[in-house]
């Protein structure tokens, strides 16, 4: 599991990318949403997956 500081750096970098694209005032406004996605992306990167674990849709009735 990666440490907290790495996570903070990741989120900071995510928000910086956003600021470069849309400007700081707008990013401040959207910060809650941006941060939630950044934290989610960070979290799933910590999951160990085997190569045979393929991406899936949901259970489909079709």
């Amino acid at each position: 599991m990666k440490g907290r500081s790495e996570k903070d750096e990741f989120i900071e970098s995510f928000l910086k990318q956003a600021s470069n694209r849309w400007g700081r005032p707008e990013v401040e406004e959207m910060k809650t949403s941006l941060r939630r996605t950044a934290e989610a992306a960070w979290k799933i990167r910590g999951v160990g997956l085997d190569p045979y674990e393929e991406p899936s849709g949901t259970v489909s009735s079709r």
Partner: protein
Amino acid sequence: MDLHRLSLSELSRLIHAGEISPVQLLEDLLRRIERLEPAIEAWVTLDRKGASAAAGRLADEAEAGRFRGPLHGIPVGVKDIFYTEGLRTTMGSPIFSGFVPSSDADVVQRLRKAGAVILGKTETTEFASSDPAPTRNPWSLEHTPGGSSSGSAAAVSSGMCPAAFGTQTGGSVIRPAAFCGVVGMKPTYDLISRRGVYPLSWTLDHVGFFTRTVEDSAIMLGALTGMGNPFSDGPHGESEPPKLGLLRGYFQENAHEDAWRGFEEAVERLGDAGVVVVEILLPDSFDVVHAAHRVIMASEATSVHEENFRDRRMDYRVNIRGLIASGLLVPASDYIRARRIRSRFIGEAAAMLKDVSSLLTPSAPTPALRGLGSTGNPAFNAPWSFVGFPSITVPSGLTVDGLPLGIQLVGSPLHEDKLLADAGWCEEVLGFQKTPRDPI
């Protein structure tokens, strides 16, 4: 007779017996909507003209002894992200404020064919995400009705219509149904067609509905899919009490005190009535389910909105704008990783249902929140949207403040008959009969 308080099945029986006509029912409900709508704001567009014409045709058919099925003459509301031919469909967004579809969504088409009367379009959060609609909770106007299917939940709860349609990507059917004290159901992914429903996230979006009783949900599902009614042989549809899998862990840790207390009381009553409740442990992968759900939703919503977002970014409200913006910064490898995590959790969720017919949790971490600034937290529903398993909420009681609580049941994919039968058991044992007092 207070027609607005009757269930879909009761109204259907009256129409079939010739005791009321579809026109009389529609007029009764339109009067009620006119009276309550200023306080509740459940509707974006009411289709008085179209509904009256449909009710007239269906009344003529009924008089001639021709019935299209249990939905014959039943007025329903439809969330304003379902395409309706010739009727404005806004998605809760200024970008679509003047959009009039040239065809019906599959669901709407099927409803019309089955004899339902489309009353109009109900309020939605913007693009079925989390920027709130103006709708208020009929149980307390100072509280949110939940979202994103806010208008549909409030309309059924307040007696404006016996059934209404919504969608769920995270918790947008189960949570508002629980907040408003009605039954809400989200069948297995894609069991009900999404064609003509504006997407938020293709692999997470589900069509669902709100009714007053579990039997009404079975009728609605049957009318849309051809599934048989598990209640045709009696109230339980099963002779033996069900075996349910109780989920604690994450759910207990994240539930508000009132919500958990109400849930435990409901579980105790179910146990006393003979329902077998066994505790099921959550698998390790549950820990990342919400994160993976978020990454998929952000990535797919971004793809849905990419063109409009480029040209009209500032026409999006802040939550959906932030969601789309965040999705533009998520690499494809993270999106694929999230979908691989979903594969794993589908298998583990199926294993949780191996020895029980349904899983049992509170329907939401809290009762309806005070204020209209947030529609509440979908965290207890999102895992089941993530994997596409069917779920249903049944009202279980009221908090000390008089706000509804619900229990959520989750079933195995394509086993809606079992899920409905289990929910029917719970409904009968819990016996929640209350309705909100009219706010006006």
